[in-house]
């Protein structure tokens, strides 16, 4: 059995990082299950785990495990494989194996990680979708963590216009948050989902920062669209600083507590001020794709022109355009279908 095969076998047991590191340091190029069972060094390293592992160290268990993964369409990628992304080499405790669902080729494409608050304001929703859409359209793979808020928005927009990778904290059978299970399925089908854990492993508190380090390492650029002063985004940002990943932050209103994090990144010059997607794309060596212009009729353009950049409610549109409310209601829906405007929670309309 080759090194990588043996590593796959070890992934059954969710061993601690330290133990796997030690095992790999003494692992010969090839060994059989019998060699393993009789290896004293291994026994020393694994301690109390050894008995459990050696009792299952046989072809049958391993084959069963591999077919279990294959049934779920899961690819188990080890650090010895060619597809394993080099980007992870900069991580001190880089994952030795990754559970993948979807197109693993995406790992080595040009990626932008988009992260931010779990509860964005209407402004945050707007800019996240705007960046995710234009970056995905230009060919960048959008990486995020499948969390509520910015993560979910970034994934959804990217699915519409390009490719996306979700890095998740738990196993594939225990999606957190559960509300994102359908989103997870869609990404697994059209993009890629990766995890460091066996499918049946539940999320633990400590797995979120671990997930964040992969998000930070996988992106060639890290983009923070909206983040408060204290949030999980800070952890991702710190990892990105460690790895030398360029950080872009979208500036926000200085009075909004939800933009404190991004604004202070820009103020402290840790992050580059992201005004549009162009700078990020040139960093990646990609160029923006022009969106096809949509033909609007007179009333539609009247409505679009009455919507200020920060958005407004319907009453304001009624007042400015003097159109009837029934007319406005139906025009807004058709504009929304065309992707020109967007309805935000609270009934606020913004230009999409």
């Amino acid at each position, binding site marked *: 059995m080759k090194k990588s095969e043996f590593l796959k076998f070890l992934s059954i047991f969710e061993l601690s990082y330290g133990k796997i590191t030690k095992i790999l340091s003494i692992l010969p190029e090839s060994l059989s299950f019998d060699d393993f069972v009789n290896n004293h060094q291994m026994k020393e390293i694994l301690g109390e785990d050894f008995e459990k592992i050696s009792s299952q160290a046989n072809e049958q268990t391993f084959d069963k495990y591999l077919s279990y993964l294959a049934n779920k369409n899961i690819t188990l990628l080890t650090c010895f494989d060619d597809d394993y992304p080099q980007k992870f080499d900069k991580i001190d405790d880089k994952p030795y194996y990754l559970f993948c669902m979807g197109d693993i080729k995406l790992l080595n494409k040009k990626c932008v990680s988009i992260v931010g608050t*779990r*509860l964005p*304001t*209407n402004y945050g929703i707007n800019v996240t979708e705007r960046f995710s859409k234009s970056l995905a359209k230009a060919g960048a793979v959008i990486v995020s963590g499948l969390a*509520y*808020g910015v993560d*979910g928005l970034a994934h*959804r927009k990217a699915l519409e216009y390009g490719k996306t990778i979700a890095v998740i904290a738990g196993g594939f059978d225990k999606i957190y*948050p559960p*509300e994102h299970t359908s989103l997870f399925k869609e990404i697994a089908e059209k993009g890629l989902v990766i995890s460091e854990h066996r499918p049946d492993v539940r999320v633990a508190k400590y797995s979120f920062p671990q997930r964040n380090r992969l998000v930070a390492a996988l992106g060639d650029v890290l983009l923070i669209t909206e983040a408060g002063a204290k949030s999980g985004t800070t952890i991702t940002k710190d990892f990105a600083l460690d790895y030398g990943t360029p950080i872009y932050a979208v500036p926000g209103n200085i009075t*909004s*507590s*939800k933009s404190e994090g991004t604004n202070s990144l820009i103020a402290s010059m840790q992050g580059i001020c992201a005004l549009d997607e162009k700078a990020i794309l040139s960093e990646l060596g990609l160029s923006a794709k022009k969106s096809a212009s949509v033909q609007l009729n007179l009333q539609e353009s009247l409505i679009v022109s009455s919507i200020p950049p920060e*958005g407004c*409610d*319907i*009453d304001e549109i*009624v007042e400015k355009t003097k159109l009837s*409310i*029934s*007319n406005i*209601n*139906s*025009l*807004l*829906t*058709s504009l*929304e*279908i065309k*992707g020109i405007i967007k*309805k*935000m*929670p*609270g*009934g*606020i309309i913004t230009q999409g």
Partner: protein
Amino acid sequence: MLSKIHSFGVQGIEGFKVDVEIDITNGLPHYEIVGLADTAIKESKERVRSAIKNSGYDYPIKRVTVNLAPADTKKEGPMYDLAIALGILCAEEKNKELEIDAAELKKFVILGELSLNGEVKAVKGVLPIIISARNLGLKNFVIPKENAVEASYVSGINVVPVSSLTEAVEYFAHKKQIDFVAARDYEVEKGSFKNALDFKYVKGQARAKRALEIAAAGGHNVLMIGPPGSGKSMLAKCFPSILPDMTFEEALEVTKIHSVAGELDYKKGIVASRPFRTPHHSATAVSLTGGGAHSKPGEISLAHNGVLYLDEMPEYPRHTLEMLRQPLEDGSITVARSALTVTYPANFTLIASMNPCPCGYYGSKDRECKCSPSQIHKYLAKMSGPILDRIDIHVEVDNVTFDDLRAETEEESSEKIKERVDKARQIQLERFKNASNYSNAKMSVPDTKKYCHLSSDCEELLKMAFENLKLSARAHDRILKVARTIADLEGEKEILPEHIAEAIGYRSLDRKYL
């Protein structure tokens, strides 16, 4: 001696005939009531005795047995007092000199509660009793004077209003003439909607007003979502003012329910404006559905032909909300208890309001929301799918700005909106004249297919909307029904793309909210 008097009881909102039989025999003084009487009836013993004595008549010092037939049906309430008292006076031979015409008495149905001094007090359920009795061919009634107005809306009957036991005795002894209650014509209460405000006082909120106009026109249920203080309750209170007037049949049905529940204003005698009920979220399930130990219509039945307004809907206990599922579908509620099963009508328009999140400010333009995403999810999850399924229109309401409040612009009055609503209802009456339902909201699946025919343009638009806006499948029929109503409001025969487009705008909770 034995005497027999006719009276009536109430079950659900129908009356049933009760024969009050009184037998007085020699023996130790004793008073016994048989025939599944409740406590209120059992206690009539003291009221009847005092009333008879204080009216100057003799109470028999003998063995008195009262039987309420049929003996196997439960009877409730004090409405039999007057019948029992008259029965005792007839049966006691000492009272011969009163000259009560027993044959005349037998032609009447007697209702009324007695007070100790012999006064006759109002009772619940007079209207349903009179209507049921009339259907049985009974024409003559003695009822408390207070209930006279209520009875006056039924034609073809003779109603004698009495205010005391003495009056009743003298009437039946032909010593006193009492005029029958004159029949009255039904008049819709105009301009004085109980609890209702006028839309002209609501500044801004164009979208919410439009949504309520559509709801009124098509009988759709509405959910308003908005931060605290955005005027959701105010909008809801204006809603009855644009509903079409109640027909006499509708009013009678509502009055029957209110009469049984003891909620009727005796001076008015009829509920002539659509009811608007706002049970608090601490309301128990039984108080909403009706039933209970003393079977009584619940809030949803009291809202029959009117509006049930549930403020802060997610605050209601889950199982209380789930109770609304059957009535929202069938327009009635059947309450089964061990003793009896009763069906109350409950055909109401549901207006519900809720905050977008526990703190109330998610998505608000001028305040920041302090809730975590999982809190918001939990909050929204309190509205179960089946309940949301029955609400056609979701509309977001945001705070009105100061400028809006001070604006001098004249807002449209309820009267004007009502004119449009009435027109749309007329179209529906025509459309459903051979069907049991009479509003677009209550269309069945085959009806929806039949009346909501879509042109290819509409089909295309709907398809695009489902793909681009990620609507859930359950939105489909709702959108068609609302679009039908919008087309009716515009006076269009066919549903046009703009109607579909507008209807799609009212499905915000079907989208990904977070």
